[in-house]
């Protein structure tokens, strides 16, 4: 069957068997090996991608189901060649060690921050409870997500302040 999926902003078409899992479409057909496979019982979340912005386990989703939809993988997080604030925060806070769970964590975290830009520790742990990590003990992952949230809020705040200044200047200094 033919499927057409928008992957990281680019339309991709492939001829697939209905049983082909989305994760294999991404890894094997499209060469996007950043999405990983860690288990066979939908238990680990290493395969997490964003489907129309919502994090799902791509090992438990058929490629044919994604026809006409959009998928974002870890390769799609980089903004203009530079790591996103979330990716930068993971490095800064030592939120990864072997890196295998990291793409899944980043995407689940990306979705969380889009929904809730200022999550508490509890909210982060809850949102990431579908993504297993064996190396970090989760502490620094939580720190990284919260730090990214703060960085993104502060950047948005600066942007807001900058746009807010313009009208005030037009009105003259006070």
């Amino acid at each position: 069957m033919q499927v057409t999926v928008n992957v990281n902003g680019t339309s991709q078409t492939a001829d697939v068997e209905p049983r082909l899992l989305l994760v294999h479409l991404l890894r094997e057909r499209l060469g996007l090996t950043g999405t990983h496979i860690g288990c066979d019982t939908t238990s680990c979340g290493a395969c997490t991608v964003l489907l129309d912005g919502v994090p799902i386990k791509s090992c438990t989703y058929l490629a044919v189901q994604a026809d006409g939809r959009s998928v974002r993988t870890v390769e799609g997080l980089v903004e203009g060649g530079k790591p996103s604030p979330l990716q930068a925060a993971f490095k800064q806070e030592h939120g990864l060690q072997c890196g295998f769970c990291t793409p899944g964590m980043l995407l689940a975290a990306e979705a969380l921050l889009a929904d809730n830009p200022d999550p508490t520790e509890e909210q982060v742990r809850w949102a990431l409870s579908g993504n297993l990590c064996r190396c970090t003990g989760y502490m620094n992952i939580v720190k990284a997500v919260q730090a990214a949230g703060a960085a993104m809020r502060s950047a948005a705040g600066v942007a807001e302040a900058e746009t807010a200044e313009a009208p005030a200047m037009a009105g003259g200094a006070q």
Partner: protein
Amino acid sequence: MLPPRFDYLAPRSLDEALEFLDGHGDDAKVLAGGQSLIPVLKLRFASPAWLVDINRIPGLDEIAEQDGHLRVGALVRHRDAERSPVLRERYPTMAEAAPQVSDPLVRNLGTVCGSLAHADPSGDWGAVMLAMDADLVARSKSGTRTIAARDFFDGPFTTALRPDELLVEARVPARPGTGGAYLKLERKVGDFATAAVAVRVTMSDGRIGEAGIGLTAVGPNNLKATEAEVALAGADPSDEAFREAAELAARAASPSADMRGSVEYKRNVVRVFTERGLRRSVAMAIADGGA
């Protein structure tokens, strides 16, 4: 492990789906969330000739109140239930259960009705629907059938649904003055319940008007603790009543011993959770003005 070969159909209308199930129901499986079906296929525990993907059928994803009940459509995801203000305000048992189903990623795709149709004895929504005394609406090419939750579950992974039928909706009666709870013991997020109890209490003139108690993972299917419900009907909401009902609920359970615990342990969890659930539900109902 990887799925065996199958053919795939993604109908664009309910009629198209029902037409297909009419001819091929015995050899087809319905794909909604796929969070139970696809793992089964990957382990090759099932080898259907056809997968019927209902995700492109419009109009199946509503959560809405209508004519005195809540309608939960076939494509309502656990995540939708989790975020529904209507559930939080008026269907607390459901609101409490939704976030405890599986893990957050699975909840983004898995559906309430899919979970009911799958009928895993450890499934959460079955117990909830039993406690809510819900009706389940099945459509087929030949018409519509409304099945009471208490008649729906028939053993492990077995329901009253015919192979040509699609579960299109769960219908939950709206009851003012109702509190509820869903207490689930699980070894970790994403594990099936060791035991779980769904409680609903509707107050009436300071007494318990009626109660619903559904049980998870302690029998060949989700169970209704009918004797406990009967004992609570019209009862004074006292510690004594809670304890008695909890004892009856524990006796209604017929758990199996496994890695999660012994028969005695699981029965005890049912007892403890029923008592705690009743206490919470009553307090909630009273606070909600259900005096």
